[in-house]
């Protein structure tokens, strides 16, 4: 069992770790061992020692997390033994620190940390706990027991120190077994932090949340919470934690939603305006940082000319930096800027802009490979042709595919095409295998800018940003206006029906038969064939979606959110 687990761990850490980082490939080093002298053999010995230690650790019942992390570090250090080279830029963190395993997470941990963080200045300046707790305790709005809490809070100021946690713990010890296990968690949590008054506040805060959550949570019996506990004692939580985090069992998070926050969703425009007004923190330092990178421009030029290609990585948008590079050094040369983050960018469009605009070629190509061949030929024939290619976000959703990368790599390997690109995604280097890396011939530059990713995220359908719907509305109107009156009527019927049912979250859509009946009654169609023809047209314009229910009946749905639909109906009414 232990061995199996260790194996899993190794393969997991291998899988998760970076190809080019401290955690070196295990197989590579073991091949070296075969005939490259004793030096490496030592490493192997060390490695096996640390693996043994690992096994031992798993057998031990060690709850000491600090110890565990230390051991992990040793293990990773053994893996990456060759990495003792000095790193200039402070990124000499061992892989273990980047990938250390999770400590057991509780649902309230985040709030705890938040309050802890919020208190840091007070700790530094002067302990001022009279105001702080009240504010802290108020933040969670969803607590159902806010009334009783308020009372508590009022009395808190004096008796807070010793009584509250105890009382809370008592209160939490409800008959519900699910709750019980939860309270065990939180109890241990507050026990850890009993010494500090301020930390207790955070415990209160978190405990307040727990009941609210457990109440709202659907109540499936906690089948194996006890068994799990026992197991946990046996194993280091290291391995356990991985499988726990990835098991399909219930996720322990609170059920609060943004809607309950009574918070209007921001659309893209207001978001942008708000952010524009918000001052950028540490502007001076960021400018300083960027100036350092800008001093490298001529070096980049030199290295590009010598046949290397340049890739920039690090936190922060590198768009401005590359733009500056472009405007300051590339004004007199032919260059191509590719916005990789653009949602509908394709390799073909990149190749097209090279053939059509740079090479002035008119005509189409059968496949991107043909096109690439053509470009290669032209660049080889004409040695005076030179092209600088700047790609923002080479690792974007659209370009990260194997084939796109292959083509871009081949393009970049041409001696008179100079590529300078930026990557942001943490897994970006996984796109490249040895073959592509050797084609790209990268020189890596760390350019941490801390600039906000304004452009890069503006296309993204962000989670919290309301899809403004303005685009959808105008396209709806546009399409509908080109249709016949009857067709518009049909669509209206469907829209109205959908709006009537908007409060029903499990509304499957309007079944075809019902819809046909309604249309007939409104004299919109005379046979189901005409209706079907009409629906096909809608479907082609992506105005409706059909899906088959469990009973085999076809359901029709307009895939547009309710507010847009309401707007649409209002507009339609105006028109009519």
């Amino acid at each position, binding site marked *: 069992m232990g061995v199996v687990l260790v194996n899993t761990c190794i393969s997991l850490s291998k899988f998760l770790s970076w190809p080019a980082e401290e955690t070196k490939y295990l197989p590579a080093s073991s091949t070296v061992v075969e005939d490259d002298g004793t030096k490496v053999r030592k490493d192997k010995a060390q490695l096996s020692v640390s693996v043994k230690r690992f096994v031992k650790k798993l057998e031990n019942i060690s709850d000491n997390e600090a110890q565990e992390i230390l051991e992990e570090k040793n293990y990773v250090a053994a893996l990456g033994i060759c990495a003792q080279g000095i790193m200039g830029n402070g990124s000499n963190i061992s892989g273990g620190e980047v990938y250390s395993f999770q400590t057991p997470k509780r649902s309230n941990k985040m709030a705890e940390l938040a309050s802890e963080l919020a208190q840091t200045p007070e700790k530094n300046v002067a302990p001022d706990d009279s105001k702080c707790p009240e504010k802290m305790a108020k933040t969670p709005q969803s607590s159902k027991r806010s009334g009783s809490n308020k009372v508590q809070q009022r009395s808190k100021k004096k008796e807070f120190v010793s009584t509250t946690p105890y009382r809370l713990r008592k209160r939490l010890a409800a008959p519900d077994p699910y709750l019980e296990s939860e309270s065990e968690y939180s109890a241990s949590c507050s026990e850890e932090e009993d010494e500090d008054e301020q930390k207790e506040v955070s415990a209160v805060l978190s405990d307040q949340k727990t009941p609210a959550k457990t109440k709202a949570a659907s109540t499936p019996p906690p089948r194996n919470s006890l068994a799990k506990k026992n197991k946990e004692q046996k194993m280091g939580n290291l391995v356990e934690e991985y499988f726990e985090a990835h098991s399909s069992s219930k996720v322990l998070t609170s059920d609060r*939603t*943004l809607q309950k926050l*009574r918070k209007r969703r921001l659309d893209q425009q207001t978001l942008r305006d708000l*952010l524009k007004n918000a001052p950028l923190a*540490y502007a001076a*330092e960021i400018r300083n940082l960027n100036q350092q990178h800008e001093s490298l421009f001529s070096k980049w030029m030199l290295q590009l000319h010598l046949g290397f290609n340049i890739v920039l*990585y690090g936190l922060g948008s590198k768009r401005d930096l590359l733009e500056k590079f472009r405007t300051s050094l590339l*004004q007199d040369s032919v*260059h191509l800027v590719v916005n990789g983050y653009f949602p509908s960018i394709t390799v073909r469009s990149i190749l097209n802009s090279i053939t059509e605009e740079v090479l002035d070629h008119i005509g189409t190509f059968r496949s991107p490979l043909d096109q690439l061949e053509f470009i290669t030929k032209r660049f080889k024939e004409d040695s005076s042709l030179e092209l600088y290619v700047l790609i923002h976000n080479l690792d974007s959703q659209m370009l990260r595919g194997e084939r796109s990368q292959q083509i871009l790599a081949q393009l970049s390997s041409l001696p008179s095409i100079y590529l300078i690109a930026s990557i942001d995604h943490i897994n970006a280097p996984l796109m490249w295998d040895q073959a592509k890396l050797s084609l790209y011939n990268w020189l890596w530059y760390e350019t941490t800018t801390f600039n906000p990713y304004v452009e890069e995220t503006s296309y993204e359908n962000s989670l919290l940003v309301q899809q403004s719907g303005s685009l959808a509305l105008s396209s709806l109107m546009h399409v509908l206006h080109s249709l016949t009156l009857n067709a518009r009527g049909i669509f209206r019927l469907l829209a109205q029906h959908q709006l009537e049912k908007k409060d029903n979250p499990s509304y499957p859509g309007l079944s075809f038969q019902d819809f046909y009946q309604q249309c007939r009654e409104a004299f919109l169609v005379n046979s189901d064939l005409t209706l079907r023809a009409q629906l096909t047209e809608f479907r082609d314009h992506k105005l409706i979606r059909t899906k088959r229910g469990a009973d085999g009946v076809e359901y029709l749905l307009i895939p547009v959110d309710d507010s847009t639909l309401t707007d649409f109906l209002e507009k339609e009414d105006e028109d009519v």
Partner: protein
Amino acid sequence: MSTCSVSKGCFVFKPSTKKRRLSDKTAHDFRCTSNDSEDTELRFVTCQSLWNQIKSETEQIQENLNKQLLDNLVSFLSRSHSDFQEKTTDWTCRMKFREIPTAALVLGVNVTDHDLTFRGLSDVLQDNITPYVALLEAKDCPGIKNLMQKLMGQLMKCDIDVDSLEDEDCVQVSQNRIRCSMPSLISWYDSVTKKTNSETPSKKRNSSSRHWQSPPVVVIFKDMESFTTKVLQDFIVISSQHIHELPLVLIFGIATSPMIIHRLLPHSVSSLLCIELFQSLSCKEHLSTIIDKLLLTSQFPFKLGEKVLQVLINIFLYHDFSVQNFIKGFQLCIVEHFYSQPLSVLCCHLADIKKRVYSLSHDQCESIRRLPSFRRYVEKQESGKQIELLTNNSFLKEETEKLLGDLHVYHENYVRILRCLHVFTSSLPKYPLGKQIRELHCACLENRVWETEEYESSLQLARMLNKTDLVTMLQQCVEILMSSSGKEFDRAVEKLKEFLTQFQNLEAEASQERDVSVSPQKELQKKTDLYHLQKTLLELKESRRSKKLTKFEMLRFEVVDYIDSLVRRYLAPADERALHEIVYFNGAAVLRGHLNAAPRTALHTALNSPHWYLKNQALRCDGGGISNKAPDICIVYKLHLECGRLINLVDWLEAFSTVVMAAEEPNADAASSDQVDDVIHARFIRAVSELELLGFIKPSKQKTDHVARLTWGGC
């Protein structure tokens, strides 16, 4: 023109006028940053010429290494279809023809380096054997149809190249895509060979003299392992049917082991092949040769420091086994050195040094004086000379020239003695100083090798070598030292030769010694009693300890001591030499950053300890935590680490606003925190979408208003 657009992702900029940059301005880039711009041009030229020399040298090495392999292959190919040449039609031959002659080329794990080999191979083939060579890669051939298309395309193209006919119609043919099948290939082959035969020899003299009348068609599978088995099988079965019409030869490029052929192909298919195995030089040997020829030679003035070499070798051994990458790293070293070290203008061949030293400007003289190694050197001189060195430029120049000459001599001697030492250490058991000369080289560069434990133990082991080994080693050393041009080692050579003669003289005496030493052992055999046995053994040990050393042993000690003295004299690490900065490149950190970057670590550092990058006191935080004044994304990141697989956005937002509000207005009244401020909300949205872009989270449909975490580590 702006590069922001909602409708377009590619923007082409063409300078309107004809003032386009030309590439020969590269030297200009060299100048831009280095402040003393006097001789950047010269430095750049030196750099380029050095690199070109090294490049041609490496190509030469590569060619030499592959020569044997290519020769073997060529002879195999010319043998393979000799029957077809002679147009023999007897039955046995027919039977044999069902088998396709195949060469399995084992090339080692680094696939990217194979390209060079294959290019060389196809050049050689086209020069010597056949114009019909097709190179196929697995990624072009997902199906048998694509394979045939690719094959025919390549064959017909090379036909065009050789025949240099009117290209037009041939291109037309391939454009129109004649049906790609074996029969069409055969008919093409027939027509081509017939054409070649029938045409007047005067016109075709060049090509026909090189090739035979019906040259074989060579198909090279570059990466045999990545081909789908189905495609390979089909191709082999089909072509074996037609082998008597089309003299086909296959070459498999194999990265792993020849066993893979049998694993990929079932017996029925592999029996259609007549496989011969060719093994290329292993990449490690290749690297050794490269290091030998590039670094352990005085041919090139540029040298690598210990750390740099270690980084390059580590990348090779632990990452890619790619010699090409090693050479690329070497190129980067050269560029970096000449770019960053203004005095590297003096890093040139001995002949040019004098001229260059005397044309140094005052500023450059000053920068020489600033070199740490030079300062150390000055401190060791007597006071009168010190003043001269620090004030008199022309004196300094003379001294510089002398020192650089010394450095050159030092390096020459260093290499010889290093090789001698390697002769000794490479044959010791367990190789305390490493088996390869590169390890020894690194050890010597790192610090005084004679002060290390490994050296101590290897000397111990060397004192136990037997005579024959010792004699052969000494002979090798003599050869190495003799090959040097200078007079430096004349005495050393004499001394070693003297040792050799002494060893020969020992021969007679040695036999007598042996007789004496045998006697106690005879005694030993007689005794069977345990007590006595033990006693005798102890006595034996005693006697051995106190025994006078034999003549051989004395001599052996002498030899080892002499080698030791040579090592101490010549193998001092380079950074003890004055002016070593000019010649040795030591920017290991830069090199590692560029070649072996750690993007994820950089992100991690930026998110966890932003003060590393943003030098602001407010961000400094002890105990590995993070200040609440940190940039938004850092706070959001830190908060999300506390969550499991799913993160509730509302909780996250609230936690964030708690932190941010506390940071901004620690004394604000509680009432205002009732609702989350719009600006904070916006900032949160931005930070979250940035985390999404970075790949830490993704939207999840499992639960409303939740996001899924994509990493599962936390701190």
